[in-house]
């Protein structure tokens, strides 16, 4: 197949809410190796095997009304709008959000007896995206992507498509998900949650812990952007077609997504300076991801610094890939790659250059970020930092 190069898209600014805080606190927490995992307090967890997670204990400003997912999005939008303006006609500003869970907590409340139509509508997985669009006054396309835990990567790709097609002049894109009983019960039942700490790529890794957050970026056509923190050069997604919950043992979908994203970006393995891995710390994911990166990047794989930020934050599901993309761009700007919190003893099967123990001085220009999710969803982003 003949593949066409796609025009890079500018990432103008970022805004987040995480267990570590806003963008500044997120970055300083990552480089200081802060572990944001704590006992979950917002809902009962005593009946679960594991009651730990990356919970946001307090939002700076809680708004009346709106579900928690919307509250997180509003907080991330506050952070974003403190750094950039939506200077385009409202009908030319789009919103594209990724989520694994949408407004599912509202569904729990609706089924628990809250009969309001508002609650029912908010339970739909695209409810929070529409709530954010209303809050920001964006009247352009409002899309919700749900490629499970790869959603925050796919959403940036879809946003870039809207800009390239001139369907919008600006797009607020990203991902979000909340910690709630629904998802904690689910992962608890799957025995995916660790009772230890999250240890990506570590010999002793025994599972993930969940986190919550919202991550937004403001995107514009590169030629229109007066300033930027980086560019999205390439994006691709691919399905495994092997299992509803587990990744393909050979990682074929992930390999395909990485290859297509690199081709779209017109960069080769030799151009990649940094890899932000999905790195959930499940025995299967980290081994498969390592093998795929070695296969696709060849000899270069072992020379590229790599990390996973899930040891610090937990797996923030729909927010994860956008947070990781933002981390890549901040690493380029600041000249520092955060280390992988929780990684202490190398797994012989995970033998790449993971940044451990302390942040590493490096200024990656081109970063590759990988994501996987339930349903055989895989996504890859190729990003270029805008170094100071």
């Amino acid at each position: 197949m003949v593949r066409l190069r796609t025009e890079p898209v500018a990432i103008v600014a970022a805004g987040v809410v995480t267990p570590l805080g806003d963008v500044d606190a997120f970055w300083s927490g990552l480089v200081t190796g802060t572990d944001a995992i704590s006992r979950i307090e917002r809902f009962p967890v005593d009946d679960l095997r594991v009651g730990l997670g990356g919970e946001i204990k307090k939002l700076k400003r809680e708004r009346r009304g709106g579900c928690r997912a919307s509250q997180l999005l509003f907080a991330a939008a506050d952070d974003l709008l403190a750094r950039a303006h939506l200077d385009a006609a409202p009908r030319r500003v789009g919103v594209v959000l990724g989520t694994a869970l949408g407004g599912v907590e509202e569904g729990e409340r609706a089924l628990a007896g809250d009969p309001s139509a508002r609650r029912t509508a908010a339970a739909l997985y695209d409810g929070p995206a529409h709530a954010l669009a209303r809050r920001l006054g964006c009247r352009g396309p409002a899309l919700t992507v749900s490629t499970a835990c790869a959603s925050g990567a796919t959403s940036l790709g879809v946003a870039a498509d809207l800009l390239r097609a001139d369907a919008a002049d600006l797009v607020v894109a990203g991902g979000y998900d909340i910690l709630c009983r629904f998802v904690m019960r689910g992962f608890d039942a799957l025995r995916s949650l660790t009772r230890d700490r999250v240890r990506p790529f570590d010999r002793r890794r025994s599972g993930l812990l969940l986190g919550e957050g919202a991550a937004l970026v403001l995107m514009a056509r590169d030629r229109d952007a007066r300033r930027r923190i980086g560019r999205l050069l390439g994006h691709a997604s691919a399905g495994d077609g092997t299992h509803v919950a587990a990744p393909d043992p050979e990682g074929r979908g992930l390999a395909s997504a990485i290859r297509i994203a690199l081709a779209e970006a017109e960069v080769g393995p030799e151009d990649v300076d940094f890899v932000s891995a999905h790195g959930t710390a499940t025995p299967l994911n980290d081994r498969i991801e390592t093998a795929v990166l070695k296969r696709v990047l060849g000899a270069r794989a072992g020379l590229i610094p790599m990390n996973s930020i899930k040891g610090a934050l937990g797996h923030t599901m729909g927010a994860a890939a956008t947070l990781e993309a933002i981390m890549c761009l901040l690493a380029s700007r600041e000249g520092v790659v955060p280390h992988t919190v929780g990684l202490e003893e190398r797994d012989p099967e995970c033998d790449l250059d993971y940044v451990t123990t302390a942040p590493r001085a490096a200024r990656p220009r081109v970063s590759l970020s990988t994501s996987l999710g339930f349903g055989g969803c895989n996504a890859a982003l190729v990003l270029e930092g805008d170094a100071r």
Partner: protein
Amino acid sequence: MTGSEVAAVGVVTGWGRSAVALPPDAVRAAAGRRVIAVEPPRAAGERFRRATRECQLGVAAVEALLREASLGPEAIRGDETALVYVTAAAYGSSNRAFIRAIASSTLHFPYTAPSAVPAEVAIEFGLTGPYVILIGGAAATIDGLWQATLLLRRGQCRRALVLAVETFAECEDLWARGRWLVRPPLVESAACALVVPGPWRATYAPAPAPSPLEALARARAGETLACAPLIALALARAAGDAGPVTLTGEWRGRRAGLAWEAH
């Protein structure tokens, strides 16, 4: 620039197993029933032991597409076929079951994710190409069809399946609360379009008003949310119109449009 066209559409609804089965007037045919349910044929095999009704409907829609196109499953197998899945709410019943702990076993949880439906379809038909999942009603399906044309244009695939599934029966009481979102009869549906390289240029833009096809699909099928644009395509093709076509779809106040026109 690579153009595209819709080569075939498979449709399964509460009215029957093809677009031809749609009544002339869905409201009249419903005779006061709020939900017109569909029971998909159960796919055989141990692998489908835990598959939800939505997953079964997704598989049934792709099988209907293959019949319509006179293709075997090998024609779509592999990494050159993209899968774009759209639904407004076909995760509702599995979410409800999980919340109510009717089915809270270990393996049920992954089926609460919208991605479970395209996953089962991808497994069944061996689809390993580009993969996009959008949440929303008919406007999201327009977005999904547009995504399919982009994937073709960029050479990321040789063909794209745009699949939509909607179920209502298990959450009928919740839909009754959201009357401003939907208008009965709510007709359970699954539909799949095969988009391939072709002569037409696809133009994607907001639509100020419903296209004649949107209105026709609404009148004939009833409320089918994300399935509506695909049903509209099937109706156009059933009427012998496989050429340039203008589709629109509305959801939560946004109406999107996609026109396949001559270059």
